[in-house]
């Protein structure tokens, strides 16, 4: 077996830091600038605690408490006629704020308005499923669980949707390593052949530029074919290997040649259809 190297912290280590990245800021407008949204926010404020409300690109953005999420979404659907849930997902803010921002994009076909309901949950905090209100939340919440590891409760079938059930860690978290994760790198080998086979199969080659033009066991070029495993390091590569679409000796049946033999130098390229 391969020597063990400690990999406890490999999931913690961020592979990328954005030194020069400036987060784009979308200009925000006051809710008072839109009567429709102002009425909606006021209606909502009577029943729930609205932490923040503003307009972004003409759409209303609301911050609510995570414990109210199902009630707010139900109220918006039934009383304020935001009758479609377009999308819901999460944003990873673990590094800066220790949790996730959940957003629900909703659309009202009567009012021709879109709103975005947001709430912030801590990393381990439970979040109620809105599946009972909108059926589409079923898969979206499974994806949230699969990709971010958000604790959704009261979901009827909460299991991973894209990754295999026995996958370790949550791939869309910013801390997820793109390379160097041992469980991910050996996943298919361990599953199919068992850990003993790691030595025989070898580590996966993740260097995209790993091309060796002298390697004739794993690479070849059409039109410049050389025998398998031939040594071409000292420039003994043939300039051009003739194309060989046919069997050696031609295509014969009972000693009679069926198809003309291919001579590459005599073949012509047709410029137009016959």
């Amino acid at each position, binding site marked *: 077996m391969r020597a063990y190297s400690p990999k406890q912290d490999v999931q913690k280590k961020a592979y990328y830091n954005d030194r020069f990245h400036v987060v784009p800021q979308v200009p925000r407008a006051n809710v008072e600038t839109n009567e429709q949204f102002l009425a909606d926010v006021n209606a909502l404020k009577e029943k729930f605690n609205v932490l923040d409300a503003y307009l972004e690109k003409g759409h209303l953005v609301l911050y609510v408490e995570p414990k109210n999420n199902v009630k707010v979404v139900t109220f918006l659907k039934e009383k304020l006629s935001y009758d479609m849930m377009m999308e819901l997902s999460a944003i990873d803010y673990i590094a800066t704020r220790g949790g996730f921002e959940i957003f629900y994009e909703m659309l009202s076909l009567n009012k021709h308005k879109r709103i975005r309901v947001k709430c912030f949950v801590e990393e381990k905090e439970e979040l109620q499923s809105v599946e009972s209100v909108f059926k589409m939340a079923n898969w979206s919440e499974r994806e949230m669980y699969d990709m971010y590891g958000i604790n959704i409760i009261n979901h009827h079938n909460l299991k991973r949707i894209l990754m295999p059930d026995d996958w370790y860690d949550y*791939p869309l978290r910013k801390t997820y390593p*793109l390379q160097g994760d041992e469980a991910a790198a050996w996943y*298919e080998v361990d599953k*199919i052949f068992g850990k003993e*086979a790691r030595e025989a199969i070898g580590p996966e*080659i993740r260097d995209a530029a790993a091309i060796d033009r002298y390697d004739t066991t*794993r690479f070849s070029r059409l039109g410049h074919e050389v025998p398998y495993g031939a040594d071409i390091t000292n420039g003994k590569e043939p300039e051009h290997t003739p194309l060989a*679409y046919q069997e050696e000796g031609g295509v014969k049946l009972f000693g009679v040649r069926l198809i003309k033999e291919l001579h590459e130098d005599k073949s012509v390229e047709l410029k137009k259809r016959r």
Partner: protein
Amino acid sequence: MAQHKVNYLANGGAPIVLTSIDKFINFGRSNSLWPLTYGLACCAIEMMATGASRYDFDRFGTIFRASPRQADVIVIAGTLTKKHAEFMRRLYDQMPDPKWVISMGSCANTGGMFNTYATVQGADRIVPVDIYLPGCAPRPETLQYALMMLQKKIRREPASKAMKRKRLV
């Protein structure tokens, strides 16, 4: 692609002079290569085009079969994800010997542009591949060429060799 320490040549040895029986058996095998109807991603579209009338795989006696029990060849046409690798190997195991594998396109050959945690970096980590077909996606003509190369490979090797179980590990 995986750097195997598995030596395929050790199993049946290098190509040797064919006997008439070998020639006859290989004639039958190579001219009725039935691939499995099995597509993974965009390469499968090209594979379907190759099977359809314009490019016409039937000319080579190659007719897609819907069951691995009836198939001789599996064309790994597309991105093989780690979640799916297990099932791909199971399909391969269900095929009767002798069987061959064509790895079609960059993704199946090396993982291609999907240099990620979730993609198998080369289908040859899972099954022993006979023909690697480069391209993204390869055109139907090149899949035909790959099939002709596979036919050639089958005709060259002794018929008994193909019956030996090819094991990756």
